[in-house]
């Protein structure tokens, strides 16, 4: 390819955030070895093995498969079954419910490649889901396959792997509708060249969309009905959420090579509790009503609060995750709107956090940050 200069080639091992299929290459390989079930055409693993990959298990040869998605088993099963029926999959949910995370891992497990990604934005153009042109070549040589720049979707079709579309509802409607032919006919005509790209077996689309944002472009019903929709729930129990946060924080810490900080379960529990209580508008013992702030306070935000707390503790603190290290982060996550959320947060601190056993230090730390 002429487009990429050598200086831009990067080493996966040094990547800030390796792709799922890179991070978990060993697990996928072990699963593929143990997997004796029938694989749908074009799949690297059988549906059964894909669910095992996502939900975690221990293989017979002792390989530990870490759980990637913690939550309802049926969500994963419906998602995998959908892909196996060659229907497109739409993952719906409020921000931070692991939509992208699940989609990446599904693509990695099914086709071994999670990189065929289109990010939906208000400026996403049709070229991003169909194909574009290398204009220099187009002018020099006229329309030819060499002058065409295929989109990730087209590449996925040609390779028979999974294409991913992030934030589908943020794309303009006309770009969204470009997907209809791809999903129903499973082919993408290139009128300029008089050819078409027919999707190879194993091709499918995983799209994510969040149902919280206002001002998004709702899917047309023609497109909608080509998707099976799976709504990803907010974690049911505090227990689950603490597990998710703990696991992700450990992984992130490893890949960012933060100095080893003993992850304090107390702090994680505290952050998760604060988030859950503010989100539901009710304390965990159902005793007190609290106001909910304007932000979503997703699990993903809880993870980032803890990670930045760890970084603080490692570089500036005493190497222990202390309430003071998470205080700033948690306030930043809760207080999105300075005026109204500020009131909510102060009220929460005074009415709930203040009186709780063992929360004294946390309360003081937050007060300090707020002052």
């Amino acid at each position: 390819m002429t487009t990429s200069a050598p200086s831009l080639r990067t080493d996966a091992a040094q990547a800030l955030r390796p792709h799922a299929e890179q991070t978990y290459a060993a697990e996928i390989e072990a699963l593929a070895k143990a997997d004796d079930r029938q694989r749908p055409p074009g799949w690297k693993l059988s549906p059964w093995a894909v669910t095992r990959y996502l939900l975690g298990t221990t293989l017979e040869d002792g390989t530990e498969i870490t759980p990637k998605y913690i939550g309802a088993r049926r969500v994963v099963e419906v998602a995998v079954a959908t892909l196996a029926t060659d229907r497109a999959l739409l993952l719906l949910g409020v921000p931070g419910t692991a939509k992208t995370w699940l989609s990446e891992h599904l693509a990695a497990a099914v086709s071994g490649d999670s990189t065929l990604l289109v990010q939906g934005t208000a400026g996403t153009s049709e070229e991003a889901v169909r194909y574009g042109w290398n204009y220099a070549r187009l002018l020099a040589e006229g329309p030819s396959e060499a002058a065409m720049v295929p989109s990730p979707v087209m590449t996925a079709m040609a390779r028979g792997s999974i294409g991913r579309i992030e934030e589908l509802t943020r794309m303009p409607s006309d770009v969204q509708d470009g997907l209809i032919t791809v999903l129903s006919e499973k082919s993408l005509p290139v009128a300029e060249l008089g050819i078409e790209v027919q999707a190879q077996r194993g091709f499918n689309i995983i799209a994510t969309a969040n149902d919280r944002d206002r001002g998004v472009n709702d899917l047309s019903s023609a497109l909608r009905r080509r998707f099976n929709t799976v709504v990803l729930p907010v974690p049911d129990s505090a227990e689950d959420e603490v597990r998710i946060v703990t696991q992700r924080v450990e992984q992130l810490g490893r890949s960012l090579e933060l100095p080893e900080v003993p992850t304090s379960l107390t702090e994680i529990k505290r952050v998760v509790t604060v988030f859950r209580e503010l989100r539901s508008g009710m304390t965990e013992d159902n005793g007190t009503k609290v106001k909910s702030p304007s932000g979503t306070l997703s699990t993903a935000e809880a993870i980032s609060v803890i990670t930045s707390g760890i970084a603080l503790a490692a570089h500036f603190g005493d190497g222990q995750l202390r309430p003071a290290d998470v205080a700033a982060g948690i306030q930043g996550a809760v207080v999105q709107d300075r005026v109204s959320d500020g009131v909510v947060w102060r009220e929460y601190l005074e009415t709930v956090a203040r009186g709780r056993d063992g929360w004294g230090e946390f309360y003081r730390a937050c007060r300090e940050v707020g002052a």
Partner: protein
Amino acid sequence: MGRSRLDTSGLHVLGVRHHGPGSARAVRAALEEIKPDAVLIEGPPEADALTSLVGELEPPVALLAYADTPKGDAAKDGDGARTDAGWGFWPFAGFSPEWEALRYAVGNDVPVRFCDLPAAHTLAERIAEAEERRKAEEEHARAEQEEDRPGTEPGDGTGAAGEPDGQSADGGTGEPERVRLDPLGVLAEAAGYDDAERWWDDVIEQRGAGEPSPFPAIADAMAAVRAESAPESGRDARREAYMRQTLRAVLREGHERVAVVCGAWHAPALRDVADHPVREDTALLRGLPKVKVTATWVPWTHGRLASASGYGAGVAAPGWYHHLFTAPDLPVHRWLTDAARMLREEGQPVSSSHVIEGVRLAESLAVLRGRPLAGLDEVSEALTAVLCEGAPAKAALVHHRMAVGERMGSVPPSTPMVPLQRDLIAAQKRLRLKPEPFDRDIDLDLRKDNQRERGVLLHRLRLLGVGWGVPRTPEGGRKGTFRESWRLRWDPDMDVALIEASRWGTTVASAAEARAADLAEGADLPALTSLTERCLFADLGGALPRVLSLLTDRAATDSDVTHLMEALPPLARSARYGDVRGTDGAHLRTVAEQILRRVCVGLAPAVHGLDDDAAAEFVRLIDATHTAATLLGGEGARAWTAALVALTGRDTLPGRIAGRVNRMLSDAGLLEAEELRRRLGLAMSPGAEPAGAAAWLEGFLQGSGLILVHDEHLLGLIDAWLLALPEERFTAVLPLLRRTFGAFEGPERREIGASALRLGSGPAADGGGSPAAVAVDTERAAPALATALAILTDGRSLG
């Protein structure tokens, strides 16, 4: 043993799961192959005589066995346990294997018998348990123990029914299932399932037609599980002993091919009947307690069959099972097609391609989960992900409706019934009120005879403890004395309530009358008055004189004036509105007036020395009585106002009551403005305790503060009082004032505020008239004024 060994070569034991469609199908196939000359079914033998009705029944139905109430012992206290526990249901759905067996036997003229432990013993045991529990509770109560003793916890292990899914003998008290090791759980675990129900569903219930009989394998599997666990004891041992005894008798009668349909758990115990010594079984069954029992068929509903309704014998989704059993083929396709139709009826655009994709998803999910056929879980997920496009609420609604698949069975008129049931059925027919298993709202216009009769019937049934109709507040606030709104929902339990109520009489009317008269004995005064009201609603003219005479007696002896005051409002309402229903209100009015007079006499002593909370409660009673007195009118109302006037003259009157009574008198025009100002001034004078003054004010302004807007002198007095308060006193009464004024509507508060401002700007020089002094054309206002006056004084002019 000594005797010759029982010949069991012709014995076929069909171990089933109760309410399992696959089991039902397999039973049918097995019976057709075996061609038995006798069929035994797990169920109470009291129902043997009822099997002839099977052809006319429409499932779901249930066998109801109830303990007879001895005549002449109507509803005395000792009978409580009997009515609470003295009945049991054995439900059958169209897809129950027992039902299939019954239908087969009746259709082919094969003798059929129920072989379980007779309900006579089961119920006797249960009544004894309930009695014991009640006694224990009473003792607990006496000992002032913790109040939250688990009243619903059934008697410990002794009576535990532990069959695979414990169908039989689960009446009101609902015995715990699976107390011991869960046999299906063990088998399912061995097969690699985490859910026993699902395993059984996969292996047995979702079998198609034409597969080989599963019963020998089931019996073997159960035998293996039973070998691992302790031998049966207690009730289950007795049940199996009885089943074996019946089986032996049937075999000895010379039947050659006998089929037994029973819970899978019991299958090995019956199959190996020859290995069990007769002696032991006889010993087990000796000397069991017994009651006299009657059995009958009653209609049942899918809703009650669903375990979600908290009913012990439940299955998760009767609608799904019904569908599995009735759908000739392609159950998943048909189910999702039905769901699509239902969604379309709700106005959702669901296309055939949705259904196609739904079926594909359900099937690939089943493959992914390693199940032979898509089950309820898979179709439910396909419904959510495809047909409802991810909207869980919509899917849950449709899914729930279909999974329960509400339907109600019916029984033919020839079914044994108590006369009360027959009377009700006749009334239902006459009034065109059909018992239905879901909520239905009706509005009745009591001016129409037919509709009034419906209301009367529902009221009577309520008196009898049959809550078929429950009064509700109509939407849109349409109220009126000639209107009644009800919510109807028939529940199979109500048949039991009817049978219980049958000791009161043979018709709904006579039973309700007897019940009302019985309730009246020993009731206290407020209960009696509300009973009077209910008698009126239910048109029980026969019971009314007795209730009223008891009421007069009770009123004469009851020394607590608050009781009398509580009793008055319903009576006054009845006296006033009785005529809408065409009843004679004269007698009622006399009783009500008597009570009112007693209240007038007792009023003054009763208000002495009440604290503020008690005073607030008393104010409520005074208000209610005042309304009642106005409704009654006449001599009684005059006596009441006189009593109120007398009351205000007392010094010791609590502030709140004094304020309220003064306000009432002033509103009724019995108190001159000048006098009112004087009294307010007195209450607000500097010598009075500020807290007392604030209470006075609160009572005075309760409900509306507009009087302050209209009378600036009053406002001025309050203003002066407030300004004169020293700071700490002011702080002390501020919360009370806040409470008083906070109760007013916003505009009202604003107007008071505006008036107060005007006060500050100096005394209004020009006459001190109303705030928005508009010239009034008295001539034009006169008719309106007269009408308003007539409304206010209820058509009479008050002295």
